[in-house]
């Protein structure tokens, strides 16, 4: 590869008519493409001199075949000049700042001195603008009175004349404009920031149109043998047709009106040829009604040349399929379907050391009937870079042939490292390296604990897999991108991988309070774990049967020497902490790898929290941490299976007393609201500082109703204890909150739009079901029923209003944050922390003198702080600090 070179400078200019004619190999005059025999017309749009696309033919210009000929430009001589749409802004500016008679800048030499500070470099960007020139005045050079130039999109320019006090618009033809632009002297152009050597302004008015080579607008042959031309060719055909007709009419001396019509039509076709999405111009359409994809459309936008073809490309050695969970896999593994493992390969160089192994691979060939059969090889690459496809009867001969220097493309097998990715790739943990496990089925399998970094679920999500093809890439993947190296998120300096949903419910059920397991139970829980012997039983009955406590079971997966003291998520922050005596068992104390008291839940092992996991990473390293996640996921799934866990509609049922209490609570609240409304209507309401009485009333009502809803939740919560699955999930932090439970069993509460009660609808009322001016709770979206109890029709409607707001918000937010992210990435993508700690661009320009001003890696810190002082002290003193 050639070494990179620094670009000295880039010159931007316009193509002059002369240049267009010089680079052209053929003048194009016929609108037709192919004759009846399917042979291109000479001087037609598919002229053989413009390059060839059909195999077999040779280019008339360079005499090369289709594969080698790069294509050559032709040109069309336009009957009359037309404006290039891309330069209308520039043309407008030039017309407004120069004299209509002599073409000089509308400034005297003194004024020029004043407005333009001559920049050090020639085109430093300090240029004159329209604002520097005073409106409506005479030319300081020739005295000519200036007229206002109007511009109408897309390509119409006109001068405004004042005649008998009336304004009359006089159209400027492209030829007039071209003549005016020609008169601008070179010296004045330099002041305007234009280099006349490469860009004379009159070149923005086209007199001759370049015809792009056939190679960039190839025609395709449909199944029925018909040729289908490219959109650009279609557009060029239009241009040539109109151009021909224009010329004929001109020669025949047609009336001015017809000429003008044709001129405008030619302008339209050239405009849409360049850009088919110009404002104020109906897009040119295909016969089917689809707008044509012309030059500008090829470059612009997401699928354009820049974003679609240069910045982004499709790659080889990748696979994509649906994902599904498998808690028995390690978090560092990914289950790959056999059908994919057979198709994808890793190139292995044959050496003296592995030649026998390679022979075996080749002998096995591309067929792999089942998981039990070891992997084979699909291709062999000879030292002369010839690829030999393995298969059929050539296995033996090729196996004989290979020797050091050959490369064997081996199929994937267990343990191969691959990159795994889920879009949108919003942070670095969206691509991580996993080890392959070849499996049955047709989906990628992954441990549910790695869902949070990918933000994946299994409702039909698909993910991509890439196989690194070189040793360097594999080493990088294993050392930098591997899952265990990315457990910590640089976003907040804590673990982002960890237990979710059932892991948390399961470990909570397993470790909550004190339970005793028999030997067979504990062996069921620990069946698949690596440990040498069971711990001493925590309790032996009189008859000699040993029992192990649930805390002992969990301690088995903890590393020895771990000391931690903290409060679990189920802690309710009592005024006075009872420490070990906590009746909720929320005080977690781990001494020397033994769980003494407390319940393991979201705070300990959950993704984003994971206090225990965090400590293991700091104290024992990433490898141990990933083992802990594997053990924890397996243990928690077993833990949840001992008792079983489900949630049904009757789990939301309360008893008659609770329903009565809820009813009372709500009617009390409604009475309170009515009372406050009465006070307001009597004008007795004392407004809060800075608020109107109406606002005060609204706030009071919201508050009263919010409290009432919370109290129904408390009533329901009192009835449903930890035996209820929803309560258990909310307390352990696995899923949902007490609010969700309140809404299911108690009362849904106030629906709101923009944080206020629902006010929109008809005149002075939300729905025709209520009286005008009714300020009551139910008239403005208070839902007193629960999801279980069922909503009344009006309540249902209010609920839909509130729900819709949420949906709209998410839709707007995602699109806005997506664009913000795109811009940030574009600005920051090539910045790099150098060895001296500075952050620099690729050109070596300094952005920060120390990364983050303190030079610390946010991933290695502790939730934002450089060092986790509290945690270290706690682990040594073994008490809560």
């Amino acid at each position: 590869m050639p070494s990179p070179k620094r670009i000295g400078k880039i010159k931007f200019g316009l193509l002059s008519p002369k240049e267009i004619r010089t680079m052209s190999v053929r003048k194009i005059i016929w609108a037709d493409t192919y004759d009846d025999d399917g042979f291109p017309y000479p001087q037609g749009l598919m002229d053989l001199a413009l390059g060839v696309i059909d195999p077999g033919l040779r280019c008339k210009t360079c005499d090369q075949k289709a594969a080698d000929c790069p294509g050559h430009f032709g040109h069309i001589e336009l009957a009359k000049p037309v404006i290039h749409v891309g330069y209308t802004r520039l043309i407008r500016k030039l017309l407004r700042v120069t004299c209509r008679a002599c073409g000089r800048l509308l400034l005297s030499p003194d004024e020029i001195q004043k407005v333009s500070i001559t920049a050090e470099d020639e085109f430093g960007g300090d240029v004159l603008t329209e604002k520097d020139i005073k409106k409506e005045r005479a030319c300081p050079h020739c005295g000519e009175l200036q007229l206002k130039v109007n511009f109408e999109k897309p390509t119409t320019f006109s001068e405004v004349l004042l005649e008998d006090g009336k304004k009359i618009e006089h159209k400027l033809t492209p030829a007039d404009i071209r003549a005016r632009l020609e008169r601008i002297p070179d010296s004045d152009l330099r002041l305007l920031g234009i280099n006349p050597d490469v860009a004379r302004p009159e070149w923005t008015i086209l007199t001759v149109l370049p015809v792009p080579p056939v190679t960039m607008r190839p025609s395709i042959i449909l199944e029925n043998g018909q040729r289908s031309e490219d959109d650009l060719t279609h557009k060029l055909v239009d241009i040539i047709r109109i151009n021909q007709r224009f010329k004929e009419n001109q020669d025949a001396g047609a009336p001015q009106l017809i000429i003008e019509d044709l001129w405008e039509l030619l302008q339209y076709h050239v405009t849409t040829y360049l850009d088919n999405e110009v404002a104020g111009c109906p897009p040119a359409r295909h016969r089917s009604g689809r707008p044509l994809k012309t030059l500008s459309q090829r470059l612009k936008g997401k699928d354009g040349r820049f974003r679609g073809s240069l910045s982004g490309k499709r790659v080889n050695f990748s696979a994509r399929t649906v994902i599904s969970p498998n808690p028995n896999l390690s978090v560092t593994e990914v289950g790959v379907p056999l059908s994919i493992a057979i198709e994808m390969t890793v190139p292995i160089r044959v050496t003296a050391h592995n030649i026998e192994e390679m022979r075996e691979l080749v002998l096995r060939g591309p067929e792999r009937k089942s998981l039990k059969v070891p992997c084979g090889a699909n291709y062999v690459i000879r030292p002369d870079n010839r690829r030999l496809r393995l298969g059929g009867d050539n296995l033996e001969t090729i196996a004989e042939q290979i020797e050091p220097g050959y490369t064997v493309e081996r199929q994937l097998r267990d343990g191969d490292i691959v990159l795994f990715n889920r879009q949108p790739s919003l942070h670095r943990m969206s691509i991580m390296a996993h080890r392959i496990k070849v499996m049955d089925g047709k989906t990628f399998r992954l441990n549910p604990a790695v869902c949070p970094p990918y933000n994946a679920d299994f409702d039909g999500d698909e993910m991509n897999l890439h196989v690194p093809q070189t040793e360097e890439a594999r080493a990088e993947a294993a050392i930098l991108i591997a899952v265990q190296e990315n457990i910590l998120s640089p976003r907040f300096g804590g673990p982002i991988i960890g237990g979710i949903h059932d892991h948390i419910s399961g470990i909570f059920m397993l470790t909550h309070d004190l339970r005793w397991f028999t030997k067979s139970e504990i062996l069921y829980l620990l069946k698949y774990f690596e440990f040498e012997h069971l711990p001493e039983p925590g309790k032996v009955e009189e008859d000699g049967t040993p029992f192990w406590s649930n805390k002992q079971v969990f301690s088995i997966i903890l590393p020895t020497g771990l000391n931690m003291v903290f409060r679990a998520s189920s802690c309710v922050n009592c005024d006075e902490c009872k420490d070990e005596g906590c009746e909720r068992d929320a005080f977690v104390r781990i001494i020397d790898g033994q769980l003494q008291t407390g319940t393991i839940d979201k705070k300990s092992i959950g993704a984003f929290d994971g206090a225990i996991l965090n400590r293991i990473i700091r104290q024992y390293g990433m490898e141990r941490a990933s083992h802990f996640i594997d053990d924890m996921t397996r243990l928690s799934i077993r833990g949840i299976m001992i008792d079983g866990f489900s949630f049904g509609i009757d789990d939301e049922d309360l008893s008659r007393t609770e329903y009565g209490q809820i009813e009372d609570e709500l009617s009390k609240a409604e009475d309170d609201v009515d009372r406050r409304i009465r006070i307001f209507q009597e004008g007795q309401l004392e407004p809060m500082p800075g608020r109107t009485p109406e606002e005060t009333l609204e706030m009071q009502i919201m508050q009263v109703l919010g409290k009432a809803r919370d109290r129904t939740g408390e009533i329901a919560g009192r009835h449903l204890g930890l035996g209820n699955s929803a309560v258990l999930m909310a307390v352990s932090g696995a899923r949902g909150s007490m609010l969700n439970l309140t809404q299911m069993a108690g009362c849904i509460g106030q629906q709101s739009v923009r944080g206020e009660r629902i006010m929109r609808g008809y005149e002075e009322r939300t729905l025709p079901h209520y009286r005008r001016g009714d300020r009551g709770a139910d008239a403005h979206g208070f839902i007193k029923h629960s999801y279980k109890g069922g909503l009344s029709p009006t309540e249902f409607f209010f609920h839909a209003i509130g729900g819709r707001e949420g949906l709209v918000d998410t839709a707007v937010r995602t699109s806005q944050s997506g664009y913000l992210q795109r811009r940030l990435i574009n600005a920051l993508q090539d910045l790099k922390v150098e060895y001296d700690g500075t952050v620099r661009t690729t050109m070596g320009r300094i952005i920060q003198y120390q990364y983050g001003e303190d030079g610390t890696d946010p991933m290695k810190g502790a939730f934002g702080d450089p060092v986790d002082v509290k945690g270290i002290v706690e682990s040594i003193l073994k008490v809560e600090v």
Partner: protein
Amino acid sequence: MVPDHQVMSEDEVKTLLARYSITFEQLPKIYHDDAAVKQINGKVGDVIQIVRQSQTAGIAEAYRLVIRRPKK
């Protein structure tokens, strides 16, 4: 509120450029009409030392090259 800005002497600039082994052009920029630059009378081509309170590092130093603000 405004962090401390100081014009650096030629020697200081020389050692600064040597410390990071960079050229003038690779320094971060600041406009000549920046209020803080005007206050200390910085000229185009000067290098300004900025000492600011930092959330992460306590005190952080930065150096910026004064350039002329382009028109528009």
